[in-house]
Each structure stands twice: as C-alpha cells, then as structure tokens.
C-alpha cells in the first residue's frame, strides 16, 4: 500500500512540512556540530602541515611537540642534523601569547622557527620574519604588514601574513624566528619545544623520541578535547530529538489512520503492506529532512565564530542515518498498526 502512504503524506502536507523543517533544522545543527568537532582537527592538521616538517624530535616522555612539550636546550641540534636520514633539522618553539595591536588584544599560539624553515609556514603576503622583532601573523587577525604589535614588553613588526592559520578553536597563529620566541617566552634562553626534522632519522640521540605529524595534531588538540566531547554529546542528543520528531509524526499519523488500517486489514491487505507504507512515510520524511539539513548547514556554518568543516563522510552518512532514524522512529507507529483490530472497520463514524 505504498501509493496509499504517499497519498496520505500529501493529504497531511502541512504537518509533513513542519516535521521536515524541524527535523531538517536538527540535522543541520547536527551537521554543524559535527563540522565544529571536525574543525578542531582540521585547523590543527593545517597548522602542523604548514610547518613543513616530517617529524618532531622531543625529549623522551614529553606528551607532544607543542603544548605538551618539555622545553629543552637545543644543544643536540647539530648532532641530530648529522644523523643519517635527516635532510634538515630546525629548532622549534611554541608558546601561548597575548598580543595587542592598538586597542585590540588577542590570544594567540606563537610558533618559533628559522626564517627559511623547516618549521616556518608559507607566507601569502610580505615575507617570513628574519629578526627577533619581526612576526608573520594569521590572515584571520585581519592585521596588515607594517603594523606594530605588542607582546608583553616586546614590540614586534608584522612582516608577513600567513593564510588562514589557526588552532584551538580558531585562535590565530603567529610566527616568529626561534630566537624571537625564545626572547618572548623563555627570557632569551636557548630553549626549544621540539626539533623539526625533514626526512626520517634512523637513529636518535639518547633521551629523545620522534613524533610524527599525527602526534603533533593530537598535541594541538589536547586543550579542546573536552569541548569536542561536549559537542559530540550535543550531536547525539540532537539525533535523539530527530528520532522523536519523526517518531511523533509517524505515531500520530498511525493513530489517526487506525480506522483506515482496520479497513485495509478487513479487505485483505496484508499487515506487512500497511507497515511498509508507514515505514516509507518515516523514511521519506527523514530523507527530505536530510536534504534540507545539508542546505541549512551550508547557510548556518559561516555564522559560527569557529572553524566548521563538515567532513564528506558526514554527508554520506546523513542519508543512511536518516533512514535508520526514520525506521527507528516509526517503531511505535508500526507497533500500533500491527495491533489494529480489523473489526474496528465495522464501527460507525
């Protein structure tokens, strides 16, 4: 009785539209939240990739090359650079810095690396910093080459703009020379948080370990693990809300159509055909909502002040999850339809 189910949907078009819009909005919010959680990883990945190193050599036991690092003296840099398999090695440092430009104050993640790398990202405008009082900043700060900024007691001049470089929920990155960062963060002591290596060192000096880019990404993600977890929980709750909306629609539809189902059964329509019709309604609502959700997500994502990158897998999974949501949601309605007594058809109006 699929045609009867489709006709019934047209018959209850207004309610259907409300359910599709509501569920579509839920799906959109779920997609955006998924995009937010994914955005943390994407921007961390972009930052790590932009440094152009294959591995980070850190002190043994350190949790990562950036935020989880144990600063150490760069005395073994030359030894490491001479190890077989190492193409290039550079002293890298990372710190959280608050900087001011005029009246504007921003929290940033600062990276220190030699002017010509490895560890210095490609600069879109201007050039990479070459002296300790020069800095390249993320384009997301909307600051300009030639502007002066203040980092604590130190004055820095912007010499370059790095395209869209952020980490930790759209916090902008800034890039200095290693010496420049050491002056700002370590009182000028020659400490680094890692040695960036191009190539694959076959052996490391004693007391060191090598971390790959993935470990670097995870290290940058560590402060946002809890928010990402909260977002995932919110997304899960939204899936449940979507199930409830579609389920309510199908259940109400089933309740209102009990007489129809009784008539169908009384005239010999198999129960499975009635159930298929109800399940079809749920799946159609969920799929239409999924389409609307994708469109709304594209419109909503730019409104968020954080990086929202919806993974392709989310778009592929959404229709499948929507079908699952539809079927799950229709269970109560299906159960009600199964129990309808065909004798009900003999009742009066």
């Amino acid at each position, binding site marked *: *009785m699929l045609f009867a189910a489709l006709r019934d949907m047209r018959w209850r078009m207004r309610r259907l539209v409300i359910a599709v819009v509501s569920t579509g909005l839920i799906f959109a919010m779920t997609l955006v939240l998924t995009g937010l959680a994914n955005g943390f990883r994407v921007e961390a990945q972009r930052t790590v990739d932009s440094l152009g190193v294959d591995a980070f050599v850190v002190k043994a036991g350190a949790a990562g090359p950036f935020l989880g690092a144990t600063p150490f003296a760069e005395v073994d840099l030359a030894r490491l650079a001479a190890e077989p398999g190492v193409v290039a090695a550079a002293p890298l440092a990372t710190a959280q810095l608050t900087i001011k430009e005029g009246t504007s104050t921003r929290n940033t993640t600062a990276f220190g690396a030699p002017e010509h790398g490895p560890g210095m990202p490609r600069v879109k405008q201007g050039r990479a910093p070459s002296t300790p009082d020069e800095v390249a900043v993320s384009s997301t700060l909307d600051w300009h080459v030639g502007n002066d900024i203040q980092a604590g007691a130190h004055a820095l001049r912007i010499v370059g703009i790095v395209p869209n470089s952020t980490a930790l929920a759209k916090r902008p990155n800034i890039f200095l020379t290693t010496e420049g960062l050491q002056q700002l963060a370590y009182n000028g002591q020659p400490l680094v948080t890692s040695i960036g290596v191009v190539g694959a060192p076959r052996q490391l000096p004693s007391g060191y370990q090598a971390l790959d880019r993935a470990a670097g990404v995870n290290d940058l993600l560590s402060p946002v693990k809890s928010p990402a977890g909260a977002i995932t929980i919110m997304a899960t709750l939204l899936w449940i809300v979507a199930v409830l909306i579609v389920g309510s629609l199908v259940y109400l539809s089933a309740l209102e159509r009990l007489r129809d189902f009784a008539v169908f059964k*009384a*005239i010999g*329509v198999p129960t499975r055909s009635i159930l298929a019709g109800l399940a079809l309604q749920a799946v159609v609502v969920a799929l239409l909502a999924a389409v609307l959700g994708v469109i709304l997500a594209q419109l909503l994502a730019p409104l968020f002040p954080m990086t929202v990158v919806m993974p392709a897998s989310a778009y592929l999974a959404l229709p499948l999850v929507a079908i699952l949501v539809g079927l799950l949601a229709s269970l109560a309605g299906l159960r009600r339809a199964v129990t309808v007594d*065909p004798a009900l058809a003999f009742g*009066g109006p």
Partner: protein
Amino acid sequence: MGDLSIADLVVEYSSGGYAVRPINGLSLDVPAGSLMILLGPSGCGKTTLLSCLGGILRPKSGSITFDGVDITALEGGVLAKYRRDQVGIVFQAFNLVPSLTALENVMVPLRAAGMSRSATRQRAEELLTQVGLADRLKHRPGDLSGGQQQRVAVARAIALDPPLILADEPTAHLDFIQVEEVLRLIRSLAQGERVVVVATHDSRMLPLADRVVDLVPAVASTSRPPETVHLKAGEVLFEQSTMGDLIYVVSEGEFEIVREVAEGGEELVKVARPGDYFGEFGVLFNLPRSATVRARTDAKAVGYTAHAFRERLGVKGLGDLIERRELPGG
C-alpha cells in the same frame, strides 16, 4: 460458488468482566444467489455476525461454511486470502480512506491482490463506471455525497468479484434519495451465484430480501394469566443470553441469580427471596436475559407477562420497577 451455512454459532466476548453472547446458537442456511437481511436493533449481534462471516471475528463455537469451506477453521495467510478474495465488505459510514480518490479507494483491494498498476486502474475505472461514478473518479470522499461514497464502497467491495458480499447498515447515513440508489445497487449484486448479507435495523429494506433473519425475534407478549413454576434445588429457571417473556416474582424458597464471567465460571449477582422479582429488563425491553437464574432451594415463583406485570405495578409502577423499588403487596 456455494451456499452459506451457519450451524450452532456462539460468539462470546467480555464486557466489564462478564461473558456476553450476542449470538447464541444461531443456525441458518442461505442458498447461493440470494440476498439475506439480518434484522435487529443495535447490539443484537448483526455486526458481530458479519464480522464472523468476513473472517474477522472468530466465534466461540459452531461453524460457518461457505462454498464447502469452514471459515472458522481458517488461519493466517489462508484466512487473509479468504478475506481478500472471497468476501467484499460494505462498511457502515462507508469507511473510505479520506486521502485517496474514489478511483484509488477502489484500487486498494486490487493492488493488495497483486494486480499491476495499469490493470488495477482500468478495473477500478470499470467498476466506478458500473456504479454510475465515471465522472467522479478523481474526487476524494469528502467531495462526494453520502450515496456516492456508498457506491464507491460498493465498487471497492466487488472489486475482486467476491462470491460473498457483506453490507453493514448500508443505508444508515443516507437520505431517502440516496437510499434508493444504494438499495438498487445492493439488490443488483445478488445475482448469479453470489450471496449478499445485509445487516440493518431499517425494516424498509425488507422487500429487497430473499430471506430475512430477525436476530431478536419478537417474543409473544400476549396477556395470559400468571404462571406458577415449582423448581427443585439446582434446577435452572432460565439461562443467560436466552430470550424470555416472563417476569418472575419469588413466592417461596430462594433463587440464585448468577452471571457468567469472561474467564469462565460464574459470579453470584443476588439471591432472590420471597417478594423479590427478576427478569424484568429482558422482557420489557426485548433483550436477552443478562443472567442465569437457578433455584437455590426448592422454590416457587410466579411468572407474569409484561402486560400483566404492568397491571400489577399500576400507573407509576414502571418507573419504580426500572429503579428496582420493592413491589407493592398483593
């Protein structure tokens, strides 16, 4: 096509925990090609009987044989196939699906039978043309008159050309002009080998019928002298669900009034002692007895017809009786 035969049919259901038998030991035979009317007031079991004939309700006992097949023995898929292929039902209040057009309503049983979409559409158009609705194919039930809706319901019922048509109060919601067109249509269905069973409380339909079955036959209520009955302890005066024409007043001994409960067994409603009366509602309102009465001890009671009982009660007595006030002496 075959004859319809009902033998010792008993249908029982639970009402408020008590066992109720709207049909109690019904037997009848309907030859192929005839139209039978089941006549009776609301609640007498007309629709219950139709449900049994349609394979929707299973009786407690007895058999319904149609075309040599005992319907009461059918199960599962075979029963669903019987409902679909052998029976066409015209429901009270039409019961068309409001979201479907007239054409689509008629298509439902055809699609359920596995016919292709194009064949289904063609057959549904033919049927609606046959019932005079060729110009209303795309109309929804809400846009049709009662008579037109009933004709769509008839077209749906005969869609698979079933040999048994059941119609439940087919004229209940129609004005007299619509009644005429529906009566003609229903009469025309009882052709060839087809059996048509119509349940109604509308005695105007009786001229249509080849056979009329009154499910609540009027009990003779001629005035006759009071009748004294003597019973030994344990003897039954009358049984639940049977019809009777006497109201009893206890003269001596005790009677127990018991009601069958749905789970089996009995529940004592009351013990009637000298001066008490019972059995009045069934007699006055032409309803089946709602309880069984059995002598608890050796007992004597006097049975009055409704007429005689009213005379004994006097002018205002009927109201007192319905409210179960005590009888005046005498």
